[in-house]
């Protein structure tokens, strides 16, 4: 039996958490030990994800490293994990950001360190689980289980309004996802009427022909769950609260990985499982995405709080990702997946920078800063690179994703692409304006005059992020190549599914009134 690498991605952080339970933590005396154990575990996991990437066959579109075990056989529920080009890099991203998040909390988390590290590791375990699950039931289990550690991270170690934010986060996400659970059940039931056996196996469900009226309901249930997670306008209201109140490590993971689960879910489940309904709803989703792009950018522009500004910029950037998915052509979807990675790196980086500033000054208000460039040149240099990457400067990672998405969107619907492009311009405005107010000009507030520049630990935190933005900008093919076959397969499934069912006369009335984005591919 080959080494079960995907299971170990889930199990290793969980085992690390259990190990930490054994460490006595009376009065934080062992805090350093606890932090180091957690860091070592998360670095090991990152190493494993890299190993997996190295052994991944980029030419194949299939799921690789698949493991299959019966779990609840009476209901066709199995433990099936596997990875394809779409999930591969998201796993690497998860592995990459977790140690950074842990490192970033080194000086800012002083209470209940052990519990903090346990929750971060459990969260990592659940996140890995979400991305590797090919069984829908298993996916849902991880999807729901992930909420609990994040809830504690926000609620215990967050800022002033942390409880409100934590409860809002968990209730919003749950409310969206429980209906998806029913849709999953309905799907498995449908499979049993068609073939006589229950199955939650994604591969089998892909082949299932779902009647059009059920597709509509199922797609809505799935899309609602994912739209809340992304978050798509108008379901985004939990995000600014959660982001702003979460501790830095929480914000990094939330922005870096958790939001991607929504867009990942759209690509992996909602679109290929229900192609007909997706065809019907994609234009509407695309409009919401564009509204989100512009709305998020406009709201970000007027935020006095840096963290809130970054949070709203996430709404805007993820709108772009959803737009790329809705285009349902190669450029759009590839750009969307790429942009998911970019956003994880650059927004994660921005939250880290904001966290460093607020660790020093205990405020996140832009007005409190000014002229930092003279005081802490290294930090500001990193800040600049990440800002530029976030607004999509050519040569850095953000450009590649945005360009591909806009290209894809333009082929699908030029009007939407044109409006989305204004969002990109707006993002340059709010990010650079914020950067200018914080870093340039005279040191207006004397409290800022004595701030220390990057400490060695902070170099370790921000260095990899900066390196990654440059690497992903210069060598995009390194990342795009492994995902290409898988993206093509999703698109084939989507277009074929929609075509055969229309040809079979299953859906005479489901032609969308709006010209369809995928039609001109």
């Amino acid at each position, binding site marked *: 039996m080959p080494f079960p690498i995907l299971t170990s991605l889930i199990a290793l952080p969980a085992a690390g958490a259990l190990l930490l339970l054994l460490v006595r933590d009376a009065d934080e005396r062992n805090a350093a030990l606890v932090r180091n154990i957690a860091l070592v575990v998360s670095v090991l996991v990152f190493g494993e994800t890299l190993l997996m990437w190295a052994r991944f066959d980029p030419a194949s579109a299939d799921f690789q490293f698949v493991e299959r075990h019966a779990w609840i056989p*009476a209901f066709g529920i199995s433990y099936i994990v596997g990875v394809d080009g779409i999930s591969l890099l998201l796993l690497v991203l998860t592995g990459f950001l977790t140690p950074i998040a842990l490192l970033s909390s080194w000086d800012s988390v002083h209470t209940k360190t052990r519990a903090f590290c346990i929750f971060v590791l459990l969260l990592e375990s659940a996140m890995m689980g979400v991305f590797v699950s090919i069984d829908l039931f298993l996916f849902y289990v*991880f999807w729901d289980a992930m*909420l*609990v550690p994040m809830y504690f991270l926000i609620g215990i170690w967050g800022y002033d309004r942390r409880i409100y934010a*934590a409860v809002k986060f*968990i209730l919003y996400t749950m409310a969206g996802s429980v*209906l998806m659970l029913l849709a999953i059940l309905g799907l498995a039931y449908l499979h049993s009427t068609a073939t006589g056996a229950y199955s939650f196996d994604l591969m089998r469900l892909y082949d299932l022909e779902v009647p059009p009226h059920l597709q509509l309901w199922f797609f809505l249930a799935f899309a609602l769950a994912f739209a809340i997670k992304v978050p798509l306008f108008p379901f985004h209201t939990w995000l600014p609260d959660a982001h702003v109140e979460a501790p830095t490590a929480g914000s990094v993971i939330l922005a870096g990985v958790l939001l991607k689960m929504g867009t990942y879910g759209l690509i992996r489940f909602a679109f290929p499982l229900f192609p007909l309904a997706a065809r019907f709803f994609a234009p509407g989703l695309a409009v919401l995405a564009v509204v989100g792009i512009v709305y998020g950018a406009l709201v970000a522009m007027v935020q006095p709080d840096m963290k809130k500004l970054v949070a709203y910029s996430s709404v805007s950037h993820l709108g772009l990702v959803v737009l790329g998915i809705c285009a349902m052509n190669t450029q759009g979807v590839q750009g969307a997946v790429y942009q998911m990675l970019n956003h994880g790196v650059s927004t994660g980086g921005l939250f880290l920078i904001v966290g460093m500033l607020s660790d020093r000054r205990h405020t996140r208000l832009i007005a409190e800063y000014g002229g930092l460039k003279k005081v802490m040149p290294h930090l500001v240099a990193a800040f600049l690179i990440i800002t530029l990457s976030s607004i999509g400067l050519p040569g850095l990672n953000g450009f590649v994703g945005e360009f591909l998405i806009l290209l894809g969107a333009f082929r699908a619907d030029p009007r939407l692409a044109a409006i989305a492009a204004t969002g990109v311009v707006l993002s340059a405005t709010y990010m650079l304006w914020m950067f200018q107010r914080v870093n340039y000009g005279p040191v207006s507030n004397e409290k800022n005059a004595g701030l220390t520049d990057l400490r060695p630990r902070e170099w370790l935190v921000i260095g990899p992020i900066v390196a990654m933005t440059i690497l992903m900008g210069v060598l995009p093919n390194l990342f795009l190549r492994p995902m290409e076959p898988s993206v093509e397969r999703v698109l084939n499934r989507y277009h074929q599914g929609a075509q055969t069912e229309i040809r079979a006369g299953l859906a005479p009335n489901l032609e969308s009134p709006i010209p369809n984005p995928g039609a001109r591919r």
Partner: protein
Amino acid sequence: MTSLNAIVPMACVTAAAIAAMVAEAFREPGEQMPIGPLGAIGLVGAAIASIVLWNHNTSSFGVVVADNFGLFVTFVLIIVGLLSLAISEPTIDREHLPRGEYYALMLFAIAGMMLMATASDLLVIFLALEVLSLAVYVLTGIRRDSALGTEAAFKYFLLGAFSSAFFLYGIAFTYGLTGSTRLDRVGSLIASQAMAPTPMQLLAVGLLLVGFAFKVSAVPFHMWTPDAYEGAPPAVTGFMSTGVKAAAFAAFVRVFLSAFEPLRGDWGVVLWVIAAGTMIVGAVVGVAQSNVKRMLAYSSIAHGGYLLVALLAANDVGKGAVLFYLLTYAVTNIGAFGVIAVIDSAERPNDRLRDYAGLGTDHPVLAGLMTIFLLSLGGFPPMAGFIAKWYVFSAAVKAGYNWLAIIGVLTSVVSVFFYLRIVVMMYMTPRNAEAPTRFPPVPRMAGLALVVSALIVFYLGILPTRVLDWAAASISTIF
């Protein structure tokens, strides 16, 4: 058939109860006697007897059937009994309750519950109902000097007696119609006339339904629940919120899915409305509670609603859903009340929400256990509550009760809100001036019981296959 085998489990428990009573009578004042372990021996005896009886489908006097369904519920009751014995210990010590009386009542109640789960005759079900109810009424008011406890016991008694009357009327009408109180004969006679149900039949079913609805605290017959749960000592509340519910649901399932199955078209609609109302009221009103015991009382009302959905949707998929849910709910809920019982101190009940502030820091293990139980009640994976809810809802979707499933999942989100309020208090709120300066230490047995409950919760949540299969196979013995 007059084989006595089928009543051996309850005979074991009854013997232990009588022994406890006798021991109390002969006990010198101040003398310590291991009465609790005596009860545990009786329960373990009952468990062994049930294992021996498994798969044999024995029946005694034609009115008690030890089929696998009854035995599965018996196992649940034994687990409830053992855990209740363990978590009662601190309450008894602290409140200076008469140990023998307390345990004797509890064991008699368990014997009544077992009888109720295995009875196949309406009159015997009624008898069992009275045995368990009388014992539980007294247990509710066992703190004689507590005004709240007395009020609770009195309310519970009055409303319980009222519902018993309904139940008895239902039996009388059924007898009038069919000339028998045995479920199998009632069933075959009703089936032969089921084409056009007469008003008399509907009246009989309706009265029985009301009687059961009272006992499982379904809306709109739930009014007694919060008061009784709040007034009783927390260990007793844990016991009655799980044991009584399990026994009542067992009889409910047996009567309605076997004898009155032919009339499903009529009672199904009523039960649909009751189930929906129970889930909604339980979850929504629970949000407004500031007393943890009342909050969990509404939570158990809501869980009764999910059980009703499982009962309604019992089909080839969801057959075992009722039993699996009962087991899960029993273990989880008794764990949660166990934590409340342990935190309870002689000076103050510590049962308001804000008393939990800072528990996460003072008593990390206890707070962790409580979090596990609450998250399981809320239906989070990988805890048992998730699998149980999933099982119920998959049965509902399969049976075509889509709206009940949708109401169910949405109300479970609402209920998560109030479970989290407790978690917020324990972990995220600093201890305020009003909270107790020190929580009492955890007694060893009670602590062990809580840890065992938590382990069962995880076991059922992560590796549920075997128990799911048992549950599905057990219920096949009755329909």
